[in-house]
């Protein structure tokens, strides 16, 4: 199989992941698209490893590492999203703007409505 197929596929995958990160509002789905991006890179690495016929298989070794790292990241990512959900009642990425460089000094941020979290 010619190298271009996996390369194009990984590029597509990477773009899909990219779109997911930028467009989706729910934090969990953003995490998922991040994983898609990482796996796109894995595909890329494995494809190049085979194409280069690297005796050291550095590409595949790195893929293994990336998979492990992605797993760890998902663990922490979900923990953080859970934390945010519990604190803010929403995991909607667009609503988390308390830390903006607000102009009026007195009020830090309008308190979130409790009702929506309870629902």
């Amino acid at each position, binding site marked *: 199989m010619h190298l271009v197929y996996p390369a194009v596929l990984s590029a597509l995958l990477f773009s899909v992941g*990219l779109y997911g*990160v*930028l467009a989706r509002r729910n934090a969990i789905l953003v995490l998922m698209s991040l994983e898609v991006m990482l796996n796109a890179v894995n595909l890329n690495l494995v494809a190049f490893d085979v194409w280069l016929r690297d005796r050291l298989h550095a590409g595949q070794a790195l893929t293994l590492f990336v998979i492990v790292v992605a797993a760890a990241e998902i663990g922490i990512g979900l923990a953080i999203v859970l934390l945010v959900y519990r604190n803010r009642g929403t995991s909607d*990425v*667009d609503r*988390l*703007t*308390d*830390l*903006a*460089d607000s102009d009026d000094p007195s009020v830090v941020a309008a308190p979130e409505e409790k009702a929506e979290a309870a629902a």
Partner: protein
Amino acid sequence: MTVTTLAVLVPLLPFLGAAAALFLGKRAPGFAQPVAVLPTAAAFVLAAIVAARQGSGPATDAAHRLTPTGSVPIDLALHLDGFAVLIAVLVGLVATCVQLYSTGYLRDDPRYVSYSALVSLFTAAMFLVVYSGDLMVLLVGWEVMGICSYFLVGHYWETEAARSASIKAFLVTKLGDVPFLIGLFALATDAGTFRINGILTAATHGELHHPTLIALLLLAGVAGKSAQFPLHTWLPDAMAGPTPVSALIHAATMVAAGIYFVARLLPVFETSSAAMAVLAAMAAITMIGSGLAALAQDDIKRVLAYSTIGQLGYMAGALAVGDRSAAVFHLLSHGAFKALLFLGAGVVIHSAGTNSLAAMSRMGDLGKRIPDAMWTMGIALAALAALPPFSGFFSKESVLRAAEHAAGGHTAHIPAAVGWTVLVAGLVTAVLTAGYATRLFLLAFRGQGATVADHGREPVVMNAVLWVLAIPTIGFGMISLLPRVFDLPQWFDGEALSPTLTTSVLGIGLALVGILAMYGAWQATATRRRVPIGAVVAAPPQDLEPALVEETAIDTHAKVYGDIAAAEDPGDPGRLLLGPLHRHAAHGFHLDALYAALFVRPVLAAAGLVRFLDREVIETYVSGTGAAPRLLGAAVRRAQTGNVQTYLSVLLAGSVVLAVLVAVGA
């Protein structure tokens, strides 16, 4: 004690006197007067001894390195020749008389100590100018005299006239000193030294590259200091100072310094005939203009001021025709009788309670009340009008003789036209001088009307000084012609100074014409002088200090007569003779207004422009540069929207841009 050590002491003593006066000042008021008079008197005596020792021998020179400058070093140098020592004697004499006179004139003035210190400092500076052999040291004395004149003219700083006159005096002389300094630089660069001898030898060997330019630059400074035509407007206003100051500074010494400087460096000026022509023209205009103006002045001191400008015009004329002996001769005699006139005027103002001639002409028997002043001023006015046998006649005749000699084309490299202009101007001025001299005497001492209120007796020292100064006024002219007793020409360059027949006859004739014309006009206007005019300083019962009388007189003159200079007095013979010219002559031909329009207004406009430029233009630039980072900062801060997806999009967009640039660009 060699001549040089004596000569060094002469300027040093008054300087130390001034320093001592300033330090003693408030602590020991008793010593104030002796500390003022004694050093100057000692300096006068020493100057006389130096003159006697130096005699008509060769010039003595001594020098000590003052400082290296990087190119032309400056030395503390002495150059004593006939001119220097005699003028030093004159300065010593007049300064001592003025100090003595001032002890009476300002006896209980709170600021007498600073006044006397400044006069001593001035005397020291004048001695320095006279004796100095190095141009830069001469400039130091030159400008110290300028600042002393500024402070002394501003002595009555309570009056508005004194406040504006002092700053005007300094600025106009400083305006002259600016080109003067550049002229000195040119001389030093061409001659390679500031020493006068070096410069004279360089001039004679023709090493000066632009003699005309240098001469004109120096002439500007001389015009400023000696109140010649373009820069003379400060002298009449300087009469707002006390009379002894005018006597010392504005009659005998400072104004003579310019003429003395030209006399000292005459070879430099002679290298360019154009400069001599300019000097002659300047002298002519000064003589005639000041003569006319003197006729129209109401203030007694302003008449004498314009007369001084006129007589300096004579000396400048003598220099223009290349005869520095005549010029210095006239300088010496003029110094004596003009100082006498000013001191006499002080006495007159004190006894009459006013300085306005119009008011004096309406006071009866003023002369009988102050006989000494009347007689001495009479003699001095006669000398001023160049009537024999007084010194004025001989010195003015020597000038006219030199001019006639040059007009005949006999003087080397002086064009005949220069001689003619000086001669004609000299003769016209002789008439005018005689005219205003008589006018002054008649109006002051031959007034009719109510007897004047007594303003207290004159302190005896003031009258004594008058007679001391009367001696040279009478005798100086005659002695100079007895070769055995005191052979003046030997002290100078050697040419004869005795008057020739033609010029003396011509001079005396014109003087008589002036006197008679004025006397006739005075008789004609006698009736009009019965109408009272002006006010007299109502002196309080106790004996008012002369200086205070003068101060109030100066202060009230403008309020009473509507103008600091002239007075609308129909009974003024000068008004009759001058006719339409009177109004212009009274205001010095409106030169002040001209200068205000030409110089003062543009400078103030430029100042306003600079103020605007600084506040608007430069300020906006500076605060503008301050604003740029603040705007950028505001933009970056607002970009922190807090939405993480904008951060991610910027991050990824940044990476894409970076990748594209890197991949494509390099």
